[in-house]
């Protein structure tokens, strides 16, 4: 079992990364974690998910359970500052996560953009999620506002 907080550096325990320190093209090393049945249950409870999807009578996990781990991929390479704001998310679903079994996942990514809009600094990064056996689960792009002023 991998609780997301076990692999994610937390805000406030070290100096956070300034906007100018995010380097476009930086590879984000692979992180391995296990999405357990218990994590799926906790995730559904936390967001109030009422009706579980099924496939042939078998319960599926909301694949958005992966969002619990998404920032860990970035923050393990670039420590998070306080005051980060989520700006945009895109997800392409590629494979199922079952709610009645544990799923071992490998995720890695890359910083793909850094830009300024209206005197605010944004960082965009991509993550690929797959099972440890290599079966694709999802691709994501995320854009965050990073406090710290103009570069």
């Amino acid at each position, binding site marked *: 079992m991998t609780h997301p907080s076990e692999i994610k550096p937390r805000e406030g325990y070290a100096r956070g990364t300034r906007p100018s320190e995010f380097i476009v093209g930086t590879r984000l090393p692979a992180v391995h974690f296990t999405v357990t049945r218990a994590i799926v249950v906790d995730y559904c409870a936390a967001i109030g998910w009422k009706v579980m999807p099924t496939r042939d009578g078998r319960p599926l996990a909301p694949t958005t359970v992966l969002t619990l781990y998404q920032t860990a991929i970035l923050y393990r390479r670039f420590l998070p500052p306080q005051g980060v704001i*989520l700006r945009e998310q895109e997800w392409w679903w590629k494979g199922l996560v079952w709610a009645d079994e544990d799923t071992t996942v490998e995720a890695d990514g890359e910083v793909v953009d850094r830009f300024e809009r209206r005197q605010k600094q944004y960082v965009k990064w991509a993550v690929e999620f797959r099972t440890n056996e290599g079966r694709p689960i999802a691709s994501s792009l995320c854009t965050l506002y990073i406090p710290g002023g103009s570069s």
Partner: protein
Amino acid sequence: MTGTLRRQITQESINRYGELNGDNDQLHYDAEYARSRGFEGTIAHGLMLLGTVTELAVSRMGSAWFEQGYVGLKWIAPTHAGDEIVVAIDDAGKIEVYAAAGRVVALGTATSAGGGPSDQTSGSE
């Protein structure tokens, strides 16, 4: 036909989500700090909204959506503790998320299109 889903956002639900995902950003827990940053009070984790959007999307498009679907969401205003959010998705996949008094907090798209970031992106702002 537009489908909708309502969800109450409370400080308790924000705390619960943050405890689960390990987010320690004080914007979610410290109202005074959040106000010092220009917000009305503590704000919800944006990914809480994405979860609710996804719940509605998969209920409309079926479980196959989790094998070759797409969802994109752009946050344009904060959701505060105490807000009831309303997620709406129309037949074209257009997503609108409202909070108190009809205030739009996020817009996006959910489709059954597969692919990946190189095939379909909404661009940066």
